[in-house]
Each structure stands twice: as C-alpha cells, then as structure tokens.
C-alpha cells in the first residue's frame, strides 16, 4: 500500500511539471505582449522605450526555457503576480473566493452520491420493471440537460412561482440547493447509470453464482457480494465528477450570483487579466489532481487486489 502511494506521488511530480509547461506555453504563445500588459498595469504610457525597458525587466528578452524556469520558480513560491485590474496579489483574491466554490462543489458531490447510490441500486434490482424504466428515463434526461438551463428552470419554478428558495446570493443551505442541483444533475445521471451497469454485470459474475451455490440467502448475495463489488469502482468515478463539477460551478456561480472563484475567473477573462487566469487554472488543476490522487489511494485501500499487489494491474 505504501509502495503504491509512493509510486503515485512520484508520477505526480512530472505530471504537474508538464501541466505547468502547457500552461506557460499557452500563455506565452497566445497572450500577445506581456510588456504591454505590464505597462497598462503600472499606468505607464507604452512608448517604444518604456516597452523595451519593461521587456528587459520582465526577462522577455531571454530564451523561452529560461523564462519558463523563472516563471516556475515564482509559481512554486506561490507568487502569481498582481491582478491587472485591482492591483492586488492574485493568490489572495483567488483564496478569498475559493472556499465558496469548494463548498458548492462539495455539496454537489454529496448530492450526486446520495441520489445516485440508491437510484442505481434500485434500478438494477428492478431491472425491466417500472422503477428501472423511470430511473433510466430520468438519467437519460439528466445527461442531455444543459446545467445552466436547469438552473433557470429551477429559479423560475422555486423562486418565481413557488417562492420557496432565494433566487441568488450566498447564505444558508437554502441558497445552495438550486445551484448544487443544477451542477450535479449530469453527474447524478452518469453515476446512476454506472452503478446500475456495475450491479447488472456483477449479478452475472461467477463468484456470485458460487455464493448462491454455497446457499447464501439472496439478501447476502446481493447486499454483500454484488453491492460491494459494484460500489468500489464508483470511487474512481468521483475524480471525474469533480472535474465536471468544477466546470458546472463556474456556470452555476454566474446564474446564482454566487461569489465563487469561477465567477471571478470569468470576469478576469472579460478583462484579459492574465495573472488571475493563470492562477485560476493552476489552482483548480492542482486541486483536481490532488482529488484524483486521494480517490486513487482510497480505491487502492478499498480493493485488496491493489492494496496487496502494489497496483501491478493498474
């Protein structure tokens, strides 16, 4: 198990380095002239001379590789520069908004799991009967539903017509319900389908046949052997859902005026505020990667095949 974790951590380092190279290259190739942006930030008129000085100051006359090393060094010390718009350190601003987004994403993930586990299991147990047809229809609608449209449908129904939930802003649990629902329906649908499929596959597994041979009651056969083997792989899907939920959070924050990091990033894109964009993608990818690492470790711990074999088959 420790060997497995060590191995995963070791892969993480080159992976994150590669991520940083890609981000750096996209920035440098697409950004236009950083010196110009720098001058804009410092309120210096962009004369030719000022530009040349700025280029030298910023190290833009150096080879690309050297620039990357400088940039990486700063990023590693968590120096992401200052926002072009507010002039404040970017990291502080991002960290100010981040908890709100994580709260929303966490709640959505919880909602996803709470809904999909019973629905997937129920659907599989009642295969080809009414509950199964119903669940599958809802799941099918769920994977086709644009989250932002669902958001407005919810606002229209629960805020405008019924007046049950606040249409926007941050506050208690009631403020979170609609954004979280609009974000998580897709993940819920995907997860429900996944669990149903796993259950049905496992019901045909030979170890389940043998459990019946041994005279175990159906309650134990399904409730233990089918269920456990169907749910363990769902752990790996959590990583994928987190990626989807981050994307969904950006949209939901915009609809519901939720003061999260996604909405902040969108306004940064309108303003071409590069330091903010760069910090945003690095932080979000970092969290995503760490989540996936955690999920993989949890999976390895749950599945003895990996726990004991050191992950030779993955």
């Amino acid at each position, binding site marked *: 198990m420790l060997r497995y974790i060590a191995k995963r951590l070791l892969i993480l380092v080159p992976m994150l380095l590669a991520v940083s190279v890609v981000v750096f290259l996209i920035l440098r190739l697409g950004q236009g002239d950083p010196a110009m942006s720098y001058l804009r930030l410092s309120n210096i008129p962009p004369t030719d001379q000022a530009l040349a000085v700025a280029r030298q100051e910023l190290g833009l006359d150096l080879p690309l590789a050297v620039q990357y090393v400088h940039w990486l060094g700063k990023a590693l010390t968590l120096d992401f520069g200052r926002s072009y718009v507010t002039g404040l350190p970017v990291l502080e601003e991002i960290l100010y908004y981040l908890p709100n987004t994580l709260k929303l994403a966490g709640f959505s993930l919880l909602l996803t799991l709470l809904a999909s586990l019973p629905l997937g299991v129920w659907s599989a147990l009642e295969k080809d009967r009414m509950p199964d047809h119903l669940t599958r229809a809802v799941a099918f609608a769920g994977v086709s539903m644009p989250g932002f449209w669902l958001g407005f449908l919810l606002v229209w129904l629960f805020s405008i017509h019924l007046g049950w939930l606040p249409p926007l802003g941050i506050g208690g649990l009631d403020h979170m319900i609609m954004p979280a629902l609009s974000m998580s329906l897709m993940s819920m649908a995907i997860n429900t389908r996944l669990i149903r499929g796993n259950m049905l596959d496992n019901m*045909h*597994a*030979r*170890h389940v*046949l*043998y*459990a*019946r*041979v*041994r*005279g*175990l*009651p159906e309650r*134990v056969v399904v409730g*233990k*052997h089918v269920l*456990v*083997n169907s749910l*363990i792989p769902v752990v790996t899907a959590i990583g994928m859902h987190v990626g989807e939920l981050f994307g969904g959070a950006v949209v939901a924050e915009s609809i519901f005026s939720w003061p999260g990091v996604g909405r902040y990033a969108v306004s940064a894109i309108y303003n071409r505020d590069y330091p903010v964009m760069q910090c945003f993608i690095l932080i979000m990818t970092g969290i995503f990667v760490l989540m996936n690492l955690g999920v993989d470790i949890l999976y390895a711990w749950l*599945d*003895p*095949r990996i726990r*004991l*074999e050191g992950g030779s088959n993955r």
Partner: protein
Amino acid sequence: MSSTPFLEVRDLQIHSASRELVSGVGFQAVQGRVLGLVGASGSGKSLTCLSVLDLLPKGLRMQGQICVQGVALEDQASRRAIRSSKVGMILQNPMSCFDPVFTIRTHFRETLAAHGMLSADFGQRMLDALREVGFAEPQSVPGLYPFQMSGGMLQRVMVALALILEAPFLIADEPTTDLDTVAQARVLDLLAGLKERHGLGMLLVTHDLGVIARLADDVAVMHGGMIIERGTVHEIFGNPQHEYTQRLIATHLEFSGYN
C-alpha cells in the same frame, strides 16, 4: 447402497427464449457411487447441474422433476433449500468463483452462518476442513485473498467449503478444467479419497474421459441436450453402443495414447 437413489432427475427440459437446450434428461445417482456425466461442451451438462439447485441464468426455463432422497422438489424454494446443505457443488474456473474483495475466512464464515452452523469452534473446524483437502499448513490459508492463491488451491478450498457443511452429495462441474496436470491429479485423488472416507455420492460432470475413468462408477453420455447412452464405467469403455460414444472414446485414446 440404499434402495432409493439420493438424487433423481426425471425428464428434465431446459429452454431459452428461442430453443431447447436440454431435452428429456433423466438419471439416478446413489450415495457412495460416482455418476459421471460426460459430453462435449455445449451438450447441456452444466445446465443440467445448475437446474438441480435452481441456479439457471435468467431467461432460461426448466421443466421436469428433481427428487432428493425420494422427495420431489417442486418449487424454487425447495430446490434452493438443498444448496450446499444436502447437495454441495464445486464449479469450474475456481479463480473466478471467489469474491476478490473478501478473504477465505469470510467465505467460510458466511457460508456456515447461512446454514446456521456458525459456532464457537468455527476456526478449528475451518482448519480441519482445509487440512482434509490437503493443505499441510491450513492456518496460513484463511487470511489470504482469492487472488493470492492458485487455481488448484482454490479448487480444494471449494471442496473444503462443501465438506464443512457435511452435505452427503457433491456435484462437481468440470473440477479439473483450467488446472495444471499436477493440480488436476491432486483434486482427483482428493475426490476419490472423500468418496472412500465419507461415502459421498457424486455427480461428476466433465468432458474429459480420463477423469471419468479415474473416478466414475457409472457413466451417462450426453450429446445435443440428451443422454444417449448409460452404463457402468466398464460397459461404456469396454463396449460402447452408441456411435457418438465410440467416436468419443476413440478420439480420447488417440490423443492420450493410453487408458
């Protein structure tokens, strides 16, 4: 040998949605003797075994009568009730028959619990059963996960799981398939020994005539979902009547070179 057969199957038919897979199979198996059911794969042997314990896959329907100790098992519940308590079963592909997430100990524990036989001396009885099937150091086995063991070892654990419930009859479905030659020989010796020591009755399903010759007292030959010939092992090998049986034996002799 008692007068009523331990397991009797009468006019068994198994249908899928589109066709008949087993048509009119019947046989009697008695305690203390091994009935070999031989035939090519796809001849309906395994389905016949599974139907006895109501284990047919969904979508297959069966008709016919199954009697254990002279009592007809008319409904599903009665056929499920004899699983492992009266009729034990060992399956082919032992590597895939154990739940990979649980240890061997868990498999023993839940099996005994299901039959209300979980008692304080559980650990000792598990070790005894494992010793009986040929584990020289049985205490090392219960903590293992299935994927840490070989096919031959798991096949013997299956036999131990059948033994510990003290079922008087055993169905062995291709018990030597997918095992290497050494493991095959061990499993066959083990089954032969059990018949001697416990007076177990056995239904031995296989496509391997070598296994039949080694273990069976009586033989029934299946082909295309029907039993085409039956008799003692000497009759079948010595004087096969049906053309298919003759061909089966000729092919077997040709390939194995002896027996």
